[in-house]
């Protein structure tokens, strides 16, 4: 499966003019996405959209305007959770009486793919995957299966998630997020928990290598809480798909949570010091579909043939980037490997 175009909205300057040299600093343990002005969206539609939907439209619409897509496939763990809570509170406040429709309509996870379809009149395949920390990877697998049967077809594939106050508070209480951590010292602050993030990244994919930005060679996903299983699966993945380590970056989803760092480090050790390790959660924060940003960053690195220094964990002498291996996990349970090449 080949990636032909991509867009990204994140807490950094990744939409329009991309600037990754200097990064925005988190506040109160959160990295909030920078939203662009949305053009081509009717004002009445826009004012009803939750942030997740706006980010999805902001990334998906430019790609659908420039490409003919046979379908829209979105991965989102929570969709517009903020609006979902508004709707649920209304049910309680008004004793299950007369309920306004907008918050409900916008809060369903498939509102993103649905709105993209409505705005662009794209009546093709339309699916939303909601497998929490593996939602985006499942969207990729869906596209891969569709393309394996019809290589001439193109699809918009993306991952989107917003920080909702409700989920954020629950995750803070559960110890996943810290309100005092910052992205400035994310990897050196050796404590549990990480910072929250949000964003959207979308891709036009099809089976044609002509003028492609990158190829997704393999996607592997699984559930496990056993570190030994994770490393074993990683070794198998590398042996099958990426036995050559030349000009390769290992893009790690390390998030500064002391409890999860060993998972990433044990995968790094599979390579020894053979390939450089890059990290990205200090620019995005943690969220269930952060791997979509990782894929976007992999495409960026392949195009630019490097990444700004702050992404690298150690010094390196990489002068050419041909392959990127992404490992990301969510809350110590959901793991994925993605292998991307030129």
């Amino acid at each position, binding site marked *: 499966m080949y990636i032909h175009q991509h867009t990204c909205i994140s807490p950094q300057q990744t939409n329009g003019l991309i600037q990754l040299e200097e990064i925005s600093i988190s506040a109160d343990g959160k990295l909030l996405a920078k939203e662009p002005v949305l053009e081509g969206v009717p004002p009445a539609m826009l*004012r*009803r959209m939750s942030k997740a939907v706006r980010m999805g439209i902001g990334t998906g619409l430019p790609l659908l305007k420039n490409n003919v897509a046979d379908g829209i496939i979105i991965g989102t763990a929570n969709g517009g959770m903020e609006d979902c809570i508004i709707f649920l509170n209304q049910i309680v406040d008004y004793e299950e009486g*007369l309920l*306004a429709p907008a918050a409900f*309509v916008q809060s369903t996870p498939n509102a993103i793919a649905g709105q993209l379809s409505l705005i662009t009149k794209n009546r093709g395949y339309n699916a939303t995957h909601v497998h929490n920390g593996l939602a985006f990877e499942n969207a990729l697998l869906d596209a891969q299966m569709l393309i394996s049967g019809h290589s001439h077809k193109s699809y918009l594939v993306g991952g989107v998630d917003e920080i909702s106050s409700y989920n954020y508070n629950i995750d803070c209480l559960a110890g996943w997020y810290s309100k005092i951590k910052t992205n400035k010292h994310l990897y050196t602050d050796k404590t549990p928990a990480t910072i929250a993030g949000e964003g959207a990244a979308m891709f036009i994919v099809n089976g044609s290598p002509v003028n492609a930005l990158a190829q997704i060679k393999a996607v592997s996903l699984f559930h496990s809480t056993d570190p030994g299983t994770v490393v074993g699966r990683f070794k198998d993945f590398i042996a099958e798909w990426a036995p050559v380590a030349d000009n390769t970056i290992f893009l790690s989803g390390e998030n500064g949570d002391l409890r999860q760092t060993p998972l990433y480090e044990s995968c790094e050790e599979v390579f020894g010091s053979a390939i450089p390790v890059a990290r990205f959660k200090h620019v995005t924060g943690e969220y269930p579909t952060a791997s979509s940003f990782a894929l976007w960053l992999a495409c960026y690195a392949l195009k630019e043939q490097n990444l700004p220094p702050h992404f690298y964990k150690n010094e390196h002498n990489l002068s050419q980037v041909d392959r990127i291996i992404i490992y990301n996990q969510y809350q110590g349970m959901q793991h994925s490997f993605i292998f991307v090449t030129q």
Partner: protein
Amino acid sequence: MEKDALKQQVKEQIVKFLNLNTVSPADIKDDEPLFGEGLGLDSIDSIELIVMLSREYGINIQDPKEGRKILTSINTMADYIEQHRTK
């Protein structure tokens, strides 16, 4: 409640309920159409306004034709609320 105060309250509620980020209550004229021209509201907004009338004033609109007349402008809404409110 004075009629002008009621109109001001309705304008504030419309801005809040319909999430009109770029409109302030002062921008809404008493006699301008709420739908189509003027404020440019649409059919989903009309449902939101009917819900708003029920929640805030205890007014239940059953007949869609009647609803269309009531929701014509701030003036028509304020007149109807004044006569039919139950809270």
